């Protein structure tokens, strides 16, 4: 089979599938009763993921090196990473909201790579001597997956900011273990009796959860009702709100991207030291990777700082979305170097 033809077919196909998937997720939010929509969305995401994996695999066969050396390949690798992180995050949290924010970005990147990039930038080109090393695979793939995870995490933080606009929020989840305790003012109530405190916790969120089933575990609650409903003041689990859920998924996904970014930067530093004897030279790409690292390190520290909790860390994470993009593509505008993918203006 003609590998080049297969690639051309696959890149357009992955764009089309991601576009459909985006529509599925968005319709799913607009019509929460159609519960098969998110399932279809997940399937679409998985198919897109496999399409891109095949595309990159075909390119690997064709060019003979790990396919993340030019802009086209790295954009598709990034899209693959975003779909993969999406599937992990969705599987861990059973939240249909993940797809609402990840699909537009994945779709946008694949559209740019498949439709906008000029043809000569899409074709495979031989590697320059400096990149001929096994470190290329190690360094670049880890960096790209970390970008994907950080982007998804930042997008979820933006979603959190949208959901909680105009509210005060206490964060759940950090290295020191904030959260996990009952809200102050939460009154343990007798079963079958609805207390006003529970309702005004978060009206919009409660509405979302009841009709949207934002997490699949809601069904489980019914089955764990205490065997003796007439008993006074039974303890029952206090569920996370939609905002808490979003915030925690965002934190966990960034928590996954941050170690990957650290490992990627270190792999790059070790490679640079092995290849030309300096593990840090303040080249623009290196510096922006460090800036990204610093911004997300600040985010992780802000979560455990008294007085900075609530929406502020999420704002930092949302800023991180821009920083990751500057680090990934913006640096190309600043100058040429080993890290440059080339550009078309």
């Amino acid at each position, binding site marked *: 089979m003609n590998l080049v033809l297969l690639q051309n077919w696959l890149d357009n196909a992955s764009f089309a599938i991601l576009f459909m998937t985006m529509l599925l997720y968005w319709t799913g939010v607009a019509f929460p009763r159609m519960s098969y929509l998110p399932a279809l969305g997940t399937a679409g995401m998985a198919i897109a993921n496999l399409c891109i994996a095949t595309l990159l695999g075909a390119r690997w066969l064709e060019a003979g090196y790990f396919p993340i050396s030019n802009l086209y390949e790295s954009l598709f690798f990034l899209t693959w990473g975003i779909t993969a992180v999406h599937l992990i995050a969705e599987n861990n949290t059973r939240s249909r909201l993940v797809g609402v924010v990840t699909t537009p970005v994945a779709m946008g990147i694949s559209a740019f790579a498949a439709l906008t990039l000029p043809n000569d930038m899409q074709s495979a080109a031989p590697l320059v001597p400096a990149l001929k090393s096994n470190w290329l695979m190690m360094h670049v793939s880890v960096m790209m997956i970390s970008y994907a995870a950080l982007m998804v995490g930042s997008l979820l933080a933006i979603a959190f900011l949208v959901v909680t606009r105009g509210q005060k929020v206490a964060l759940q989840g950090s*290295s020191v273990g904030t959260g996990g305790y009952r809200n102050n003012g939460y009154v343990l109530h007798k079963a079958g009796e609805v207390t006003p405190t529970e309702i005004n916790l978060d009206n919009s969120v409660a509405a979302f959860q009841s009709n949207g089933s934002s997490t699949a575990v809601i069904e489980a609650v019914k089955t764990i009702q205490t065997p003796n409903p007439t008993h006074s003041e039974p303890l029952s689990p206090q569920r996370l709100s939609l905002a808490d859920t979003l915030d925690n998924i965002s934190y*966990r996904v960034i928590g996954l991207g941050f170690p990957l970014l650290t490992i990627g930067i270190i792999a790059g530093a070790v490679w640079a030291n092995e290849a030309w004897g300096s593990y840090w030279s303040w080249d623009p790409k290196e510096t922006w990777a460090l800036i990204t690292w610093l911004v997300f390190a600040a985010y992780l520290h802000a979560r455990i700082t008294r007085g900075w909790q609530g929406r502020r860390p999420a704002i930092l994470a949302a800023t991180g979305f821009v920083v990751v993009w500057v680090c990934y593509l913006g640096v190309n505008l600043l100058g040429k170097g080993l890290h440059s993918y080339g550009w078309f203006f």
Partner: protein
Amino acid sequence: MSLDSAKSNLWLSLRRFFRREFLPVLTDLRLAIVLLLAIAVFSISGTVIEQGQSVPFYQANYPEEPALFGFLSWKVLLSLGLDHVYRTWWFLALLILFGSSLTACTFRRQLPALKWFARTWKFYKQPQQFRKFALSAEVDRTPLDNLVPFLEKRYQVFREGDALYASRGLVGRVGPIVVHASMILILVGAIWGALTGFMAQEMVASGESFKVQNIVDAGPWATPQIPQDWSVRVNRFWIDYTPTGGIDQFYSDLSVIDNQGQEVKHKKIFVNEPLRHRGVTFYQTDWGIAAIRIRLNKSPILQLPMARLNTNGQGRLWATWIPTKPDLSAGVSLVARDLQGMLLLYDTTGQLINTVRPGMAVEVNGVKLKIEEVVGSTGLQIKADPGIPFVYSGFGLLMLGVIMSYVSHSQVWALQKDGKLYIGGKTNRAHVAFEREFLTLLEQLGQKQIIEEHNSVQAIANQDA
């Protein structure tokens, strides 16, 4: 008051100031966040403004009228050191402050957190204690023993009478400590390397020997690292080209020569594959054309040096002048672009008169000029960095630490009292996943209870029958 006691008073008050005023500020998380973001912001300036250019460059690109953003003229730029941001005193001061904050935090906050492991397992003996957990439940008619099999799969379970404590993912608590300590190690390694390391660059023609002399950058204690009693010979330098004419790889065949002229080491280096000898590393980084070997009519082989032309960054060209008359009254200029391609011949008026390839001959001014060989020179970067072992171990620990830090530390408490089973749990990071896990646990517990009750009812029924 004696001078001594005044001195010790001053010392004491300084120490008090350090402990009571300075350390709390230094270990304040908000300072750490501000420092992280400040380093990020100032680093950006160095990626936007071209670094390490000449003064005329900044004069041309950052004129005084109109100044960029109304203030950033070349004078302001140079006086702030924005042409070398990462080596300015204020950037280094920021890094030192960051290092101090990191060190203070590691010893005052992170390492003391290890005490957490020294304490005995906390069992909850009162049902009220379960009320503080968001995730807690009470279950009737379920013995504590039913809970254990579900927990044992993933948790470490401790029991004390009717109380149970289970935990999982303790490494998640150690992770951040490892991260902070390893970063100190990296900083120490970087400082040690800057003080004791050196970097040199040499451009050596194929076939020549050299000692490391052209030191570009060296720390104050770098002298012992610079090789004195051995030298290196470039046996051969060549370039492999791809079929389309692009460069595939640069190679230098190097020998390490001791004082007696004996070869002690031999290696072919290329980009990504350096030569190491006694802590000094030779990297393939650059190349050039050193000379040309020619033959005029039936002359012996003559070697003429080639000089690099100033092209203002428009490609790399080397040239030499070849006399074609014994009194040097006539000759041609020869220009080369690389080691294998076409060589261009120009006459004294600057007209292109012919082209020739290495190994071929051409007739100029009535003389047969044969190009025997274009002699390449290899550009080597030479470096010693005694800080590397520290930096690399720091890297290793840092990677380990960040991975450990992803793990969420989950804890579950249970108590059997007055015919009820109380269960509570919390985790420090993965709240969403833990909530699901906790609810699944309760569900499993309920199902097991139903099955057991069903079984016991059947058993009774069987007995009755």
